[in-house]
């Protein structure tokens, strides 16, 4: 054996027991540990450096303005938007029809995406809050942001797990418990134990600096006022007084103003050869334009940028393929989302919001020429959006339906748009105050002032007290809040979500909550805290 060692083991040692015999996997092309570097946020105070860019990016990741998640389930399940099946196009296994007709099931893909996207965002918040060395302001903002994500879950699914640390499981909470958690988190970061007209928010680490991509104390109050407005739905306890107080505090104490005629931005979608295209967007229209970041109305928005903050794809989602030539888009749109005819018709002819919020009629290209669609299905190649949609399924005309355009499109637009998307804006805060006052008093006339503030800006006649009813208020709110993921929640609060509308029969009340996704039920089943499905599913 000694001889054998000489012959065999020596070279073996030389060959194999050098420096590279371990099996540790040292990844070169991937990051495996967390880190954050701060960025500079320009705000009204001149600018601050913070670490929150990545946490607030979760608003984009969580499907606020793209197809397939939160935005889609909120909008298509309501009476303001639909995606009709255009022959083979946009049937997608029926899930879009299911959203419209309220026949969604626990395996619905978008219901699952909404759940996962929101929990992923909450995890990023949880990871951030566990970091060392973050400021009180950062902590407070992220707690408020996490509370907002839980508000989405409370609104959509009701009974969810309150996860407050990465990967640490928790039992399923009732919707009321989720409500309480959101309320206590927001009150805590606002620095008060309850809302009151004379409350002192000076001690809140959130501060009052205006920066609509972050949450200041008014942003947190705005989220809280939304929570209170829906307390009767979420918890079974009316909190209209609190909702009105929170909204009123913002209106009276904050520096925000409605974007009125004095707020103008250049019209980035303008076609020089089309006379109807204004040089500037004014007021309401300006508040949602691609250059809306300086609007005085927006309190808390999701930052979108075609280059560095993608995720708003309305131009792709809503426009016909050939509308590419109107805006010189870099990419061909998808011809999906359209507005229901009844919803479109709820606007008066002179309502500035109707002109701003929709594309209808024959479409012209950048040069002012009529756009021709060589694949047209109606024998007429002219691209013409008709408010009427012939049917939801299976053969909707490809040019049918007024197209959403509130977040207006710009020339040379990319698939990702640059319009900041409001979560809290003063216009809605007026509507919250008006509605909360009316509901608190049991008298819709109490909403008159606030609703007229909104109607004035829209260029339509002001109402008198008798014209404000639950139904008319809901319609006004719909016209104002179109495309802002508010309609489903509003219809539920007004008891209208289960009504029949175009191509939708009456639905049962359990539909007011989405089902807990089947995957969530399944994957939680093996753990200590299995999720229970919402009733009815």
């Amino acid at each position: 054996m000694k001889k054998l060692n000489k012959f065999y083991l020596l070279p073996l040692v030389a060959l194999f027991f050098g420096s590279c015999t371990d099996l540790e996997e040292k990844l070169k092309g991937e990051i495996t540990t967390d880190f954050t570097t701060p960025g500079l946020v320009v705000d009204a105070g001149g600018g601050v450096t913070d670490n929150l860019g990545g946490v607030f990016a979760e608003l984009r990741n969580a499907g606020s303005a793209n197809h397939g998640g939160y935005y889609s389930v909120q909008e298509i399940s309501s009476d303001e938007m639909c995606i009709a099946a255009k022959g083979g196009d946009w049937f997608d296994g029926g899930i879009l029809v299911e959203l419209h007709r309220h026949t969604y099931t626990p395996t619905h893909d978008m219901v699952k995406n909404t759940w996962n996207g929101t929990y992923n965002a909450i995890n990023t918040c949880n990871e951030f809050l566990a970091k060392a060395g973050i400021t009180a302001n950062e902590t407070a903002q992220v707690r408020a942001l996490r509370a907002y994500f839980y508000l989405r879950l409370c609104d959509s699914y009701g009974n969810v797990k309150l996860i407050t640390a990465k990967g640490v499981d928790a039992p399923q909470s009732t919707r009321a418990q989720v409500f309480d958690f959101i309320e206590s988190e927001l009150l805590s970061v606002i620095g008060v134990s309850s809302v009151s007209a004379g409350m002192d928010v000076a001690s809140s680490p959130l501060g009052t600096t205006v920066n609509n991509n972050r949450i200041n104390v008014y942003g947190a109050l705005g989220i809280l006022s939304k929570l209170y407005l829906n307390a009767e739905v979420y918890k079974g306890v009316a909190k209209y007084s609190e909702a009105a107080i929170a909204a009123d505090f913002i209106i009276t104490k904050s520096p925000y103003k409605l974007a009125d005629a004095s707020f103008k931005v250049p019209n980035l979608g303008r076609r020089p050869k089309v006379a109807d295209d204004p040089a500037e967007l004014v007021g309401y229209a300006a508040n949602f334009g691609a250059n809306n970041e300086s609007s005085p109305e927006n309190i808390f928005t999701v930052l979108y940028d075609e280059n560095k903050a993608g995720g708003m794809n309305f131009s792709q989602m809503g426009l016909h393929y050939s509308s590419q030539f109107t805006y010189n888009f870099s990419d061909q749109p998808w011809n999906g989302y359209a507005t229901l005819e009844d919803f479109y018709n709820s606007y008066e002819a002179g309502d500035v919001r109707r002109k701003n919020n929709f594309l209808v009629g024959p479409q012209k290209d950048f040069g002012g020429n009529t756009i021709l669609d060589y694949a047209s299905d109606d024998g007429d190649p002219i691209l013409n959006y008709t408010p009427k949609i012939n049917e939801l399924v299976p053969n909707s005309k490809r040019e049918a339906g007024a197209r959403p355009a509130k977040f207006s499109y710009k020339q040379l637009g990319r698939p990702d748009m640059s319009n900041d998307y409001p979560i809290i804006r003063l216009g809605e805060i007026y509507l919250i105050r008006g509605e909360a006052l009316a509901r608190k008093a049991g008298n819709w006339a109490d909403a008159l002032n606030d609703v007229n503030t909104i109607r004035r800006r829209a260029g339509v006649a002001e109402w008198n007290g008798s014209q404000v009813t639950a139904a008319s208020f809901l319609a006004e709110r719909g016209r104002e809040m179109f495309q802002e993921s508010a309609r489903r929640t509003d219809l539920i609060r007004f008891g209208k979500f289960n009504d029949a509308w175009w191509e939708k029969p009456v639905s049962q009340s359990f539909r007011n909550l989405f089902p807990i996704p089947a995957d969530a039920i399944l994957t939680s089943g093996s753990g200590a805290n299995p999720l229970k499905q919402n009733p009815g599913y």
Partner: protein
Amino acid sequence: MKRFLTKLTFSLLLVVAGTAFLTAQKVVSGTVTDPSNGDALIGASVLVKGTQTGTITDIDGTYSLKASAGDVLVFSYTGYDDQEVAVGASNTINVSLVAGKLLDEVVVVGYGTQKEKEISSAVVRVTREDFNRGPITDAAQLLQGKVAGLQVYNRGGDPNRASTIRIRGLSTVGANVEPLVVVDGIIGASLSNLDPNDIETFDVLKDGSAAAIYGSRGSSGVIIVTTKKGSRNKDLTLTYNGQLGTSNRSRTLDIMTPSEFAAAGGSNLGFQTDWINEVTQTGITSVHGLSAEGGTEKTTYRASVNARNVDGILQSSGFDQFNTRFNLNTKRLNDKLTIDFNTSFTTKNQNFSFNEALRYAVIGNPTAPVNGADLTKYEFDEAQFGGYFEALGLFDFFNPVSIIKQNKNTGRRSEFNFGANVGYQIIDGLTANFRVANQRNGSNNRQYYSPTSLFRGNATSPIRKGRANFYNDKSDFKLLESYLTYAKSFGSAALTLTGGHSWQQSNFESSFFQVGDFPNNSIDWSNQIEASQDYANAGFISANSDASPDERIIAQFGRASLTLDDTWFVNASVRREGSSKLGPNNQWGIFPAVGVAVDLNKYLNLANVNLLKARVGYGVTGSLPRENGLAQEGRSLVNNPDGSTNTRIFRLANPDLKWEAKAETNFGIDFNTGRLSASLDIYNRVISDFILNVKVEPIGGVDRQTRNAGQLSTNGIELALDYDLIQKDNFTYNTGIVFSTYKSKLDKYVFPKEVRGNLGAPGQNGTNMILVQEGQEIGNIWGPVFDGVDDKGAPKFKDLNGDGKFVVGADKALDSLADMQVLGNGIPDFELGWKNSLTFGKWNVNAFFRGAFGHSLVNTFRAFYEPRISTQTAYNFINTSKAVDGLTAARFSSLYVEKADFVRLDNLTISRSIGNVGQLKNFNVSLTGQNLFTITGYTGADPEPALAYYGAVDNGAVEDFNNPDVLAPGIDSRNNYFVARAVTLGINFNF
């Protein structure tokens, strides 16, 4: 001088022999020849039976040795039947050895060879004469249909796409499904750098007991390739091999003619365009191979160059490959030291063209013009599209002629291999082996999309038109192995022991960047990317790079083989192996195997039976994941508009991640009567601990984690028969079949059931068609049953459970009340190959039929485009015999699931041996037809089984071939090549 030296050697041998024997002996001499051509056999062995005395024939085929009357001389030569002749009165014994199938043929197994007889596992050897012929584009095609249980499919036959290879069906669910390839001992080599002309044999290790010696990469089976070597004592011989062939499309889909289309309500633009004709061509293939081989007593060598130029049937698709290979084998130090070198270098210039052009040719409006200027009925700005017409307002359609004429999609690949094996016989019976190998590959791919191309070139964008993609990768594989082999006989028992160590490391790096916005069409801007306007607007530039970690495998292995009485054969092996890809808690695995074989005929003594062997083997093998890093937490970097960066989790860590395991039991019988040989294998394999990306609750930031889960069991039967039906002097007919069948059942899974395989856009997203369910077979196609058309033109479905409700929505596929059922299965019930070889004088005819039976395919073209959708009138309509009148809505159902049984004349070769023509020897001419006909009821382009799904791809998106979904077989995707029929003329000769 050489002759003299040889004779001197022989004389010395005689002296040695003479002194060793004391009995009265005489010198026996003679010549050993091949009767088929009278050639001398050089280096044939001549042995006095029962002794160590022997010699070999010299370069004239002559031998001479001392023997006594009554001795028996055994003549043997590789590839020929042994012959025994008793020494009588004559001093001259001339022998003709007959080429034949030797029972003692040596088979390559892991780290050594064994006689075929000693094998106790399922190993099949395929030699040169059985290879498929014609314009072979990748080495795997040589094997198509030749080995029972080996599936080789290249759906459609895209020359630039490697075949899908499966041994005994699905062998792993979450890991690498392709077999491990070992070329001349080098593990993990690639088949793509092998020219088919250089391959001598394939040994396919089918079962676990054979493959276990390869451990954690053996689960998908092992294909061992032996390249051609030089012959000893042979003068330099040159061989030329040439082929010239043409290929044409053989099957497409039935679509409407312009008049049918107009009559069916299609958008009539007034032209007559055959889009498929516009984008296909007659492909010309030429192959030239030249090799030089020879050898001396101690050293053999072979060098070859091969040039292969293949055009596909899609215009501008094809490749040029140039390959060189060199093998040198020598013996030194009294033959104790053996050294083998092999090296190869391959370059391949590929023109991928765009398979999408075929897809859009199928659905192109047949009344639309190719060129925009022809359209006069409406205004059209053809200059914007390089002169071509585009339908514009249509999702997922681009002028296919424009796609291939205006854009480029090319790749260059080079592969370099080097291997050396050093063996040293330390003492009698004990040999040490060291092997070192290195394989370096590089790819350089480029796509250029013209500024006037609508397809990926953004021709409609006013400012940002044109795009250039650059992709480079490099990979490097190193292998160091050493092992000892000890062989010893004890009376009638013989023992062979092998043990060793293996170290392997792979590295990979890649870079990609994309720029666009080129001013016009004046040059191919991918050669001058500084012209890109994207520089002014850097946000458009897309770039990424990647480098793998040092991907390492370290193993120790051992094997014992015991032979008793030349009747009982026992083999046992074990490999302990660790991989860097697995979780730190589970990096090492043990892979044992054991097998026993017995030659029953030693006991039964059946007349005319050479062999009746029964064998049983059991072995455990593993599979490793494709990706790196699966055990570790992964985070992506996010750059925010405010300049901040943060990371976001995309993968949860799993330190317990381990290899996927396969345990396989194989029972086999081999039977041989000389004329008839048969092999039957019955097996059971259980795969467990799939490496799966499993759904988890999203409370940790991501809703997926890579985990081990699930169990799949497969039972199968394979039969190979080979029969020399006619054996006359001037006429022989040999025929054989290979038959295989298997059923795979999913015993356990992460969920009781799920559906996979999304049909896709337009309109059928979320339509998952393949049911994956515990307790069920793999590959079940799942959906509602078509039941006519309603008054709106929408399909009606059957109320299968009779509850009066129609639960048929695609997202209801798992609903207990769903009116859905299994509509077919994507995996064939059985597969058959039937070979026929006739020799008539100098003529030889080979016909090879191949078929697969019992599988179904989802005909996705029909599912999207056959209904006469009134709002979708600018795509041509698919118009097969299965089209349903009045159906105007596209919705997946049983209507689109078709049986795809087929029989195909894969290969018909007629060759004639001409003999010597002047200086040229062994001149041979052949004519080969590939895929001459297919009998099938399937209405799609190709009835071959689709073993994996690459996802729905639409509107110009790029298909990802790296992530096949093996649990979703049975979907005939729209992105397919068309099957070609090829005719090839071949010649070869020596000189």
